[in-house]
């Protein structure tokens, strides 16, 4: 049953050193505030899972929290490369990092299989692709009816998943709308889940019957953090801060500049700071 609590408490109670953790979001609703709280709490030896590791994974990697990354596209969306991730992979800075690399189709299927309680996902993929030569977690199963050889990957089953969503209601049900990405699957695949939301409303009576809702008993903790996905966006609340993504490319290009920025904007900041960061980006409709 979802517990309403502060983000600080939710991270402290649900993310531990050595965990397999997913902070999911597909461009939309990326849980920046939750990742920053994890950084402030200094978690170590994490295995981070994500289809599209971007700025927050770059930050956690640069801060030396990450033992291994499981992903399918590591880029600053619309901008380019992830410089802290590159530094870790190319130069082992701040320490060596293991990677397990997949395609989007594989990761999407792996989360779906995790949500479905299955040990693996089976799909048609990786034909002629070199990833299967370098990733021992890409294997094969044979269709027992046609003989077709299909790809198989292990399901993703994080210890904890963090997502950002638009709304919770007072019962603790969570609503995700717009580009819903892989969030539902990431929560259902995980043992524990923490959801930051823009606001808590009385009820979902006016919500579409088939909207993407996570019932309160499928969520561990809910934290109201307005602006909590900045510089990503929350459909219906505020738009994407494209300038901040462009700026990140510069910040992350230099180790010292990165550390200074992290101190000022993350280590010395609070979840409450996110609200003011989106004030100029609020949708006027």
């Amino acid at each position: 049953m979802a517990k309403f609590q502060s983000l600080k408490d939710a991270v402290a109670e649900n993310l531990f050193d050595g965990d397999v953790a997913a902070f999911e979001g597909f461009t939309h609703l990326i849980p920046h505030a939750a990742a920053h709280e994890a950084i402030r709490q200094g978690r170590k030896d994490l295995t981070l899972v994500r289809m599209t590791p971007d700025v927050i994974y770059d930050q956690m990697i640069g801060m030396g929290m990450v033992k291994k990354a499981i992903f399918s596209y590591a880029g600053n969306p619309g901008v380019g490369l992830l410089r802290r991730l590159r530094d870790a992979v190319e130069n082992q800075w701040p320490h060596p990092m293991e990677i397990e690399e997949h395609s989007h189709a594989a990761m999407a299927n792996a989360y779906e299989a995790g949500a479905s309680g299955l040990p693996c996902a089976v799909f048609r993929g990786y034909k002629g692709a070199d990833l299967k030569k370098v990733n021992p977690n890409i294997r094969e199963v044979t269709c027992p009816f046609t003989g077709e050889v299909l790809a198989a990957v292990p399901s993703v089953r994080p210890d904890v998943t963090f997502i950002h969503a638009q709304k919770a209601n007072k019962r603790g049900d969570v609503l995700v709308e717009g580009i819903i990405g892989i969030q539902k699957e990431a929560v259902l695949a995980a043992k524990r889940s923490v959801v930051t939301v823009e606001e808590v409303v009385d009820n979902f009576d006016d919500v579409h019957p088939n909207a993407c809702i996570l019932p309160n008993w499928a969520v561990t903790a809910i934290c109201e953090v307005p602006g909590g996905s900045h510089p990503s966006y929350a459909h219906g609340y505020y738009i994407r801060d494209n300038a901040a993504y462009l700026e990140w490319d510069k910040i992350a290009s230099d180790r010292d500049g990165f550390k200074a920025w992290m101190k000022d904007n993350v280590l010395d900041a609070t979840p409450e700071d996110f609200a003011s960061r989106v004030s100029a980006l609020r949708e006027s409709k």
Partner: protein
Amino acid sequence: MELDFTRDEMMTIAASRALGNEDICFVGIGAPSAACNVARLTHAPDITLIYESGTIGTAPDVLPLSIGDGELCDTAVTTVSVPEMFRYWLQGGRITIGFLGAAQLDKFGNINTTVIGDYDAPKTRLPGGGGAPEIASSCGEIFITMKQSLRGMVDKIDFFTSFGHGEGGNAREELGMTTKGPTLLITDLAIWHPDPVTKEFTVIALHPGVTRDMVQETCGWKVKFADNLETTPEPTELELATLRDLNARTKAAHSGAGA
């Protein structure tokens, strides 16, 4: 010769012409996104554009900076989850054209966007494949756009992120693929088609003002040219105005936000 359009504009417009009203396109960011939307705003108003974030039948007024911008959802026929996108729509065989870019490309349309150098000790770690490995195998056919350079168009790519025609010939069939693979390459200098038998990319048209030498100088393999080499028709006034308006709207929208 003085051009009143840039090579980038020519590349985008040439790509847009290859798209039709009936096409269902899996769109990437950058040049493919511009080309698809120019097609939609000119000769192919009913084209279906799909971005891997889950937006189906989207019609953005400005180009998205990422594949998951809110504009894509606002204007879509529907927005589905990412697993559904990859299972029902891509793997389901419903996409007629997949657009891919490349960090490295070889003459058979094989693409690398994973690493430069050795995978385990890379010289440059690139973002990785994302949707490309399955886009390359599941879409009816693949269009590739990229700017020519000796670094990008190479004799041998460092990593097969996505499979084009392998070593050429029937390589796809031998792997059990039933889709066509790369059928079109549009660079900033030329239009290329795979040879029907060898599958090697062959220049079939040079963009206005481009010479054979210019193509060869910026390509890492020995370029084949078609016997009846044509010249790509110049952008029309409508095409150019549409692209420029789109880019202007996009710039205004993106610079207006935040910072």
